[in-house]
């Protein structure tokens, strides 16, 4: 089935950008100039950290969301409304708890106008295909997460869509079941004959996409954009332990981490008025990372950290970046190491930790600016709006709401200043 890049284009995104209107009135750009083609006979994966808009791309291609700019084409024609050739497998299953397995599949065949007399046969066929025989009359609440997602898959392939969209399909399924489901989905796809011709999946799991996809689209965040597209030449069935597989996984890492974690050398050169945005992670996450490193001799592979802590890779990178800004860790290549300050921090008493943390925070322009502001007007409360204004002024492209929340979380940990949620004001500790 793997015909590489020669299949005809089933669906394409051309210059898609998307913005969400926020309740306060301003707009948040989530996608920037996405160009993407899905050809017949391939599995394409969108890989990226949370918040990079990968699920939004999938929904735009399915016609559920209309992009602010750019077009979707199906078979060369501009898409208006729903993409009729696509069916979606949802992250949260989205099954009907009041219907049996059979009925869950039946209703979509009825609604999509499957020939009436053949519905019964088609339901039996698909239910068998996904390994749900014997569960025909069970209700979703009686099934495990893996079994529920089998129903989700059965429902999607029952209507014989030419495109099967899967939105993080295995993230709510336990690890072992996910592994077998991946293989089964590929089997179904290879055996299915005409439809589904192609699969588009969204994932944040590097191994998963290397196992499944022919083409891996690596996305970056804020706003979501395509960073690079990698072809996966490995023949199926793929073996997670084969050296080729491992090499590909590592290359993807390097692509992601190489961009997300610039080496220290570039960091210190900053224009004088530069204010750094804070990565979206809490102080306790950073402390957790430092403890983790300390327990492993002060050095660890960033990928290993993600596996050990069972955290999403993108989130780990964010935490590492946070620690790096405070000069607590270094990131040579894929490794993360504790710096002298980091070591001092992990050895310190809880009270001293706060002092170290505060000292490191004050190295950052953002905290210094706000601290100076508070110190200058000791009797006057500094409002949330004022601080947010400073953020917006210096970092117009950042989403100031989460940034402000983060700022407060970091500052509270270091006892730099306190924040009263009711009056929304900052004051000296």
């Amino acid at each position, binding site marked *: 089935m793997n015909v590489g890049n020669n299949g005809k284009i089933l669906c394409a995104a051309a210059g898609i950008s998307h913005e969400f209107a926020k309740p306060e009135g301003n707009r948040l750009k989530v996608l920037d100039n996405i160009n993407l083609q899905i050809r017949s006979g391939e599995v394409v994966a969108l890989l990226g950290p949370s918040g990079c808009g990968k699920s939004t791309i999938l*929904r735009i291609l*399915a016609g*559920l969301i209309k992009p602010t700019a750019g077009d979707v084409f199906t078979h060369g024609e501009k898409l208006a409304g*729903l993409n*009729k*050739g*696509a*069916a*979606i497998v*949802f*992250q*949260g*299953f*989205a099954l*009907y*708890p*009041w*219907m049996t397995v*059979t*009925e869950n599949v*039946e*209703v*979509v065949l*009825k*609604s*999509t*106008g*499957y*020939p*009436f007399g053949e519905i*019964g046969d088609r339901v039996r066929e698909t239910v068998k295909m996904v390994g749900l025989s014997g569960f025909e009359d069970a*209700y*979703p*609440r009686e099934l495990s997460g893996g079994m529920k997602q089998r129903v989700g898959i059965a*429902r999607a392939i029952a*209507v*014989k869509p030419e495109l099967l969209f899967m939105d993080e399909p295995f993230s709510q399924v336990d690890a072992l079941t996910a592994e077998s489901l991946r293989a089964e989905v590929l089997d179904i796809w290879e055996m299915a004959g005409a439809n589904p011709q192609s699969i588009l999946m969204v994932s944040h799991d590097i191994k998963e996409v290397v196992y499944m996809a022919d083409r891996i689209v690596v996305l970056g965040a804020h706003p979501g954009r395509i960073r690079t597209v990698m072809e996966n030449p490995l023949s199926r069935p793929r073996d997670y332990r084969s050296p080729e597989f491992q090499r590909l996984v590592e290359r993807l890492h390097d692509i992601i981490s190489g961009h997300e974690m610039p080496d220290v050398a570039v960091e210190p050169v900053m224009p004088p008025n530069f204010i750094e945005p804070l990565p979206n992670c809490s102080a306790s996450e950073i402390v957790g990372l430092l403890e983790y490193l300390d327990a492993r001799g002060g050095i660890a592979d960033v990928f290993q950290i993600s596996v050990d802590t069972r955290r999403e890779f993108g989130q780990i990178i964010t935490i590492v970046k946070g620690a790096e800004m405070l000069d607590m860790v270094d990131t040579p290549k894929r490794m993360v190491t504790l710096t002298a300050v980091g070591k001092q921090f992990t050895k310190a008493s809880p009270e001293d930790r706060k002092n170290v943390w505060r000292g490191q925070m004050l190295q950052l322009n953002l905290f210094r600016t706000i601290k100076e502001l508070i110190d200058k007007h000791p009797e006057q409360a500094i409002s949330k709006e004022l601080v947010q204004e400073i953020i917006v002024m210096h970092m117009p492209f950042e989403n100031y709401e989460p940034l402000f929340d983060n700022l407060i979380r970091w500052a509270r940990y270091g006892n730099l200043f306190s924040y009263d949620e009711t009056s929304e004001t900052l004051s000296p500790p």
Partner: protein
Amino acid sequence: MEWMPWGVPGRFRLRPLTAYWPDAVFILCLAGLFYGLAGFEEQITAHFRPAFEIDLSPLALPKYALFSLARGLAAYAISLIFTLLYGYWAAKDERAGSILVPLLDVLQSIPVLGFMPGVVLALIALFPRSNIGLELASIIMIFTGQAWNMTFGFYHSLRSLPPEQREAAAVFRFNWWQKLRWVELPSAASGLVWNSMMSMAGGWFFLMVSEAFMLGERDYRLPGLGSYMSVAVDKGNYPAMAWAFLAMIAIIVALDQLLWRPLTVWVRRYRLEESGGETDTDSSWFLEWLTKLKVLKAAELGLHHLMMRPTKQPAHPLTPPVRGKIERWLLSSLRWALFAAVIGVLLYAAAQLAGLVAELGVAEWKAVWYSTFLTFLRVFVVLLAATLWTLPVGILIGRSPAALKILRPVVQIAASFPAPMLFPVMVALFIWLHLSLGWGSILLMLLGSQWYILFNVIGAAAAVPADLKEATVSFRLSGWRQFTALYVPAVFPALVTGWVTAAGGAWNASIVAEKVSYNGQPLATDGIGALISQSAERGDFHTLAASIMVMAAVVVLLNRVLWGRLSGLAQERYSLGK
């Protein structure tokens, strides 16, 4: 799956005939009920008889109770239809929704007497010769006490469908009717049943007013439990009052055991898994008995298949017929027409009201505002007093599983009991104690509205997560500290919900609390409730319109400004959901 409504034929013969006795009993009961309702039909079609002569003998009571029950259920049926249509329309049509939702808020705050004159006069004019008009008027008055919160609940269920469910319905191209049957109605069912229970109680609250009322010095009385009670009160016949009281309890308990309890248990299957909660431990003996019935099993299966049945079969697989231009044009013009109709009705009502109100002088307006202010103060005293006792008691009940099991159903019954039926006894007590009605009415309003707070507090206290409870115990917090540190904040969101409902209830109750009768003598104190009921009796529609308008405006304003903010705060700060 084959469509076999009567089960697999072979199994039929194997069962002994005695296995069917529950079916026989059930069918006999149904037949009995229909026979009883036939009497109601005779009453409706009988000659116009505005003031029915009520027989105070206890033997006549079962028939009256059955009549009232029939009216309540008929009103409920109308409420349900209204809810489905209005809620669906408001949720689906953004433009109409922007008018319909606030309108619902206003309708909710208009007391039943605000609807009475228009409804009664119009319907009697429509059916001058038979009782149909008067009966319909009574049913519609009960309906105005039931419908609004059901409609709100249904609207919110429709709007809060999880996004993935919405997307799945779109991707698999459910048309509106399929979406309604397969997704929206099932997911709204649970909330609808709970709100129906509340609504039914709301309908009983004004049963006496809805069955026996004065309009422009003219007496209207329909045969029913509410009229029986008011006649008993007028005559000071205490035994008859006690009988009416018992009959009301019987109706409420019967409805609870035979209708609501089985429904709430049965409807649990129609819940999206994400929205768990509520009382999972409840069970219903009646439902267990019903599930043994072959007749009902067949009916349920039939209903299920009806729900799952395909609607229209599109011509070609994967390409459902594109909705034609004419069809789309018709739909959009229908929407505009309905929207215009609503606006038209609203403008007409506003013009009528303005006309009525325009003739009032400054002194009358002053009286209206002064009365509203007095009642406003009473409502807040009521909330304060109710909170003082229900908060600790509710927490104590909710905290102990044993107390919860016994007392929750009792509180539920107490909450559905129409408090106005107790007022005559209370008034006699006030007179004996030389307590003025100005203060006494606060107690009456309290009697009618405290249950909402108690009920909500119990529910929230019972739902405090076990680990939080264990934490407070393991840190050896004293009893008082447990209350202030854990339970009071944990129940706060529910307390706010209780306040909102109780405040609405108290405003409504003021109408029957500030003007009462004692041994046939009217007794009143200053307040907007008294002003409303007196002006309705006198047929002074100018004052009535002004009073209703001011009261509705104040209630809506309080909802928006005070309660809206408080519940926002409660959700943000004290919600245990996060």
